[in-house]
C-alpha cells in the first residue's frame, strides 16, 4: 500500500451552474475530491459573487479586473475549470448539451424557472444522456405553492425555523443571520450527488435530486418540533442559556468586545470550575449543588464568573478552564481564527497562489481523509479561463469553431458592461 490511490471522484465530470454559495460549494466539494468540475458562468451573468462582493479585494484594491479578484468568489470555487458560456442563447445551450453528453453530473441552484425556460429540465437532459445526474439545489423544492419564491441564506434560516429560536432572553427574536443554509445545503447536495452516483451504478439510470434547502434547515430541528407536539411548547429566545447545562454563557474579558464561553455539562465540570477559578467553597454551596439549582441561581453564577473573567484575557481564561477539563473557548474573531494554533497544527489551511489575487490562505475542509488527502490543486478560475480547454480538449472543437463562438459573443472572458455595473 505504498502507491497513492486516485482521489475519490477521479474520472467524474461535473457541470457546475452554481451561483453565490450553496451551488458553487457543492461543486467545490466534488472538485476537492477529484472530480473534473467545469464552472459555467457567462459574460452577461458571471457568478454574482464576482461583482457583488464589494470590499473583499486584496488590500481593498479592486484592480483592473475586480471580477477575478474577489475573496468571496475565490474562496468557493477552487479546484474547478472556468467556462464562460451564454446559456441564454441557443448556440450556448447547444455547447452545453454537448457537454451534458460527456458528463456525469449537472448541478445548479437556480430558481425553479431557469432550466425549464432553457428547455434543459431533467427530461431534456436525460434525452441527451440517460445516465445524467441532475442536482437541483432549490430554495423550497421543485414543486409546491412556495417553490417559486426567492430566498437567500437568511430567508431560509427564518422559514426553516432557526431564527425564531434566537435572541436576548425575554425579548423578541432578532433577525440573526449567518447564512448557514448555504454551507449546509452545498455540503448536503454534494453528499446526495455521490449517493446518486451509487444509485446510478445500481440501476443504470440517471437521477434527479430535487433538494429543498428550507427542509434541510428544518431537518435539524426535530427536537423543537417534537417538544411542540409532546408539550405544546413554543421556544422563546433564551440568550446563551442551555436547557441541560448550567452555568452556560459568555463572560466579559479584558479588552473591548472580548468574551469567553463557558459550558458546565455536569456536576463534575462544576467542581472543576470552582477549583479553576479559585473558589473551592462554592463546591459545597447549596445554591449551586445540582443542575436545577444552578439554573435557579444562574444570575448569581453569572456575576461570579464575570468577576473572574473580567481580570483575564479571553485566551488566558479559556486556557485555564481547559486545564481543569471544563469546556471553554474564546469568542474568536476571524483574525483569531487565522491565528489559531490548533487549526495551524492540523494543516487546516489551503495555501493558494491565485493568478490575479495573489497568495492567500483559505479555510480548508470540515474533514480530512487519511489515505487521499485533499488540497487546492487549482485556484479559482478567472472568468472563462478554461474556455479553450473545455471546448477543444473536452468537446474536440476546432480552432475555427471556437473562434466563431468567441466572435459571436457566446463564449468570453470579460463581463459585459451591464454585468460589471451589477445590472444582471
Amino acid at each position: 500500500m505504498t502507491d497513492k490511490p486516485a482521489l475519490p471522484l477521479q474520472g467524474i465530470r461535473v457541470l457546475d451552474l452554481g451561483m453565490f454559495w450553496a451551488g458553487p460549494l457543492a461543486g467545490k466539494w466534488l472538485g476537492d475530491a477529484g472530480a473534473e468540475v467545469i464552472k459555467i458562468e457567462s459574460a452577461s451573468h458571471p457568478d454574482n459573487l464576482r461583482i457583488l462582493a464589494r470590499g473583499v479585494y486584496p488590500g481593498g484594491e479592486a484592480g483592473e479586473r475586480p471580477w477575478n479578484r474577489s475573496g468571496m468568489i475565490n474562496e468557493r470555487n477552487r479546484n474547478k475549470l472556468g467556462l464562460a458560456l451564454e446559456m441564454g442563447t441557443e448556440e450556448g445551450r447547444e455547447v452545453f448539451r454537448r457537454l451534458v453528453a460527456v458528463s456525469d453530473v449537472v448541478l445548479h441552484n437556480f430558481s425553479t424557472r431557469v432550466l425549464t425556460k432553457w428547455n434543459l429540465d431533467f427530461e431534456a437532459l436525460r434525452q441527451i444522456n440517460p445516465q445524467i445526474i441532475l442536482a437541483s439545489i432549490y430554495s423550497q423544492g421543485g414543486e409546491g405553492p412556495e417553490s417559486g419564491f426567492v430566498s437567500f441564506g437568511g430567508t431560509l434560516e427564518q422559514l426553516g425555523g432557526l431564527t425564531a429560536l434566537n435572541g436576548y432572553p425575554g425579548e423578541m427574536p432578532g433577525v440573526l443571520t449567518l447564512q448557514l443554509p448555504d454551507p449546509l445545503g452545498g455540503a448536503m447536495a454534494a453528499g446526495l450527488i455521490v449517493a446518486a452516483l451509487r444509485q446510478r451504478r445500481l440501476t443504470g439510470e440517471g437521477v434527479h435530486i430535487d433538494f429543498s434547502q428550507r427542509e434541510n434547515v428544518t431537518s435539524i430541528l426535530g427536537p423543537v418540533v417534537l417538544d411542540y407536539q409532546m408539550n405544546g411548547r413554543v421556544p422563546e429566545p433564551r440568550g446563551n442559556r442551555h436547557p441541560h447545562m448550567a452555568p452556560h454563557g459568555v463572560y466579559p474579558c479584558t479588552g473591548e468586545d472580548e468574551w469567553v464561553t463557558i459550558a458546565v455539562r455536569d456536576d463534575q465540570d462544576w467542581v472543576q470550575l470552582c477549583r479553576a477559578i479559585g473558589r473551592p467553597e462554592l463546591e459545597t454551596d447549596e445554591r449551586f449543588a445540582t443542575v436545577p439549582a444552578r439554573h435557579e441561581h444562574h444570575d448569581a453564577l453569572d456575576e461570579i464568573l464575570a468577576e473572574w473573567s473580567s481580570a483575564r484575557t479571553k485566551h488566558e481564561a479559556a486556557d485555564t478552564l481547559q486545564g481543569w477539563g471544563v469546556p471553554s473557548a474564546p469568542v474568536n474573531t476571524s483574525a483569531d481564527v487565522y491565528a489559531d494554533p490548533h487549526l495551524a497544527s492540523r494543516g487546516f489551511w489551503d495555501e493558494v497562489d491565485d493568478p490575479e489575487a495573489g497568495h492567500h490562505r483559505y479555510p480548508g475542509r470540515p474533514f480530512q481523509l487519511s489515505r487521499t488527502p485533499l488540497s487546492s490543486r487549482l485556484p479559482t478560475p478567472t472568468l472563462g479561463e478554461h474556455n479553450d480547454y473545455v471546448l477543444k480538449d473536452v468537446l474536440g472543437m476546432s480552432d475555427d469553431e471556437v473562434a466563431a463562438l468567441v466572435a459571436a459573443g457566446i463564449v468570453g472572458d470579460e463581463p459585459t458592461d451591464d454585468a460589471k455595473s451589477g445590472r444582471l
Partner: protein
Amino acid sequence: MTAPLDGLTVVEVGQGITAAYCTLLLSSLGAEVIKVEPLRGDETRRLGPFPQDVPDRERSGQFLALNRNKRSIALDLDTPTGQDLFRSLVQRADIVVENEAPGRMAERGIGYEHFVEAQPALVWTSITPFGQAGEYRDRQATEITLFAHGGLMVLVGDVAREPLMFQGNPMLHSAGLYAFSATMLAVHLAEATGVGQQVDSAILDGIAASHFQAMMDYEYAGLVRRRGPMHMPIPTMDGFISFTVQAHQYADFRRLIMGEEAGAAVEQESAVERDRRRAEGEMDNEILMWSVQQTKYDAYHQAQSAHVPAAFLAGPQDLLESPQYEHRDFWVTIPHPDAGELKYPGFPAQLTGVEPSWSPAPRLGEHADQILADFAGLTADEISDVRAAGVIR
C-alpha cells in the same frame, strides 16, 4: 425499489448528536445502521424533550428524532467480550461512524488501525470537536464553545451587548451533515478501488469553513468583522416577518401595500428624495402600517409576489402546518411503541425512483439478539450467557 445506499452496513458508536445525525442521513438513503449504545444508553436518551417533561429513556424527543431507521444493541465496549462482539459487527460492516474521544477506541483495541489490515476497504468516520490530530485534540468542547472558537459567535447579536449563540445545536448537526457527505466520498472510492480510509471530521474545522464573508474580509483586506446593530423583525398580526426591499423593487412594493397611485408616485420621485424618505424612516413606517394588518403568512406571500425575498419567522406550528411542506410530504408520521404517533422531519431531497421508508427509533438494546445472531453467529444460549455477564442489554 432501489435506494441509493442499499446493501451498505453501518456500525455507529455514537453518543449525542454528531454521529447520530450522520448515520440518520445514511439510513434515510437506504443504509442499514446498527447503533452500538453503552449499557446506560445514548446520552440523548436522558436529555429530552420528554412527553409531559417526564424523563423516560424511551421517549426522549432528541433521541427519537436522531435515531429513526436504526437498530440498537447496548454493548459494554470496556470488556473483552464486548470488544470481541464489536469486532464481529465491524467485520460485517462497510462503514463505522463514531464520535468517541480521539484515541479512545484504539485504547480498547478496537480502533481503525485494528481493522484496516483485514478490511482495507473499510470506511471509518470519526467525528470529534477538534479532530484526531492537532494541538487542542484533547480539549473539551460543546456547541457554544465551538461556535465561539470558530469565529461565528462574534458576528451574532447586538454590537452593544454580549454575542449570542444559535440555539438548536446547529453546529453539532452541521458536523454530522458534513461527516455524511465526507463519508460518501470515501465510500465511493472504497467501492471503486477497494481503498478505504479514516474520515477525520472535526466540528471546529467545519465551523471555520462555514463563514460567509468574515474570513475573506480579514484575509484579503485586513478587516475584522463583528456584529452590528441587531436587526429586529417586522411585527404582523400574529408574528414576525423580515425582508429588505431593494431600491428597484420599491415602486412595485409600495404599489402592493399602498395602491397603484402610491407606487406610481415613487416612479416619479428622484433618487435623492427616495433616499431621504428611506433615511427618515418613512419607508419603514409605511411597511409597518401595512404589516400590522396582515397575518405573517399573508405578508410573506404578498411580499414574495413582488419578488422581494421575504420570510416569516417560522415556529414549530408553522412548520408543521406549512402548505409547502405538505405539498412535498415532508413530515412523516411514525408510530413508536412508547412515545406514540409523532410527526418527524422527513428527508430534504427527493430522488428519482426512491421512496423513503421510516421505522421508529429503537428501544435500548431492542435488536441485540437479532444482531448477535446475524453478525456474530451466536446461539440463543450464548446470547443469554453474555447478557447474564452484563456485557449486553
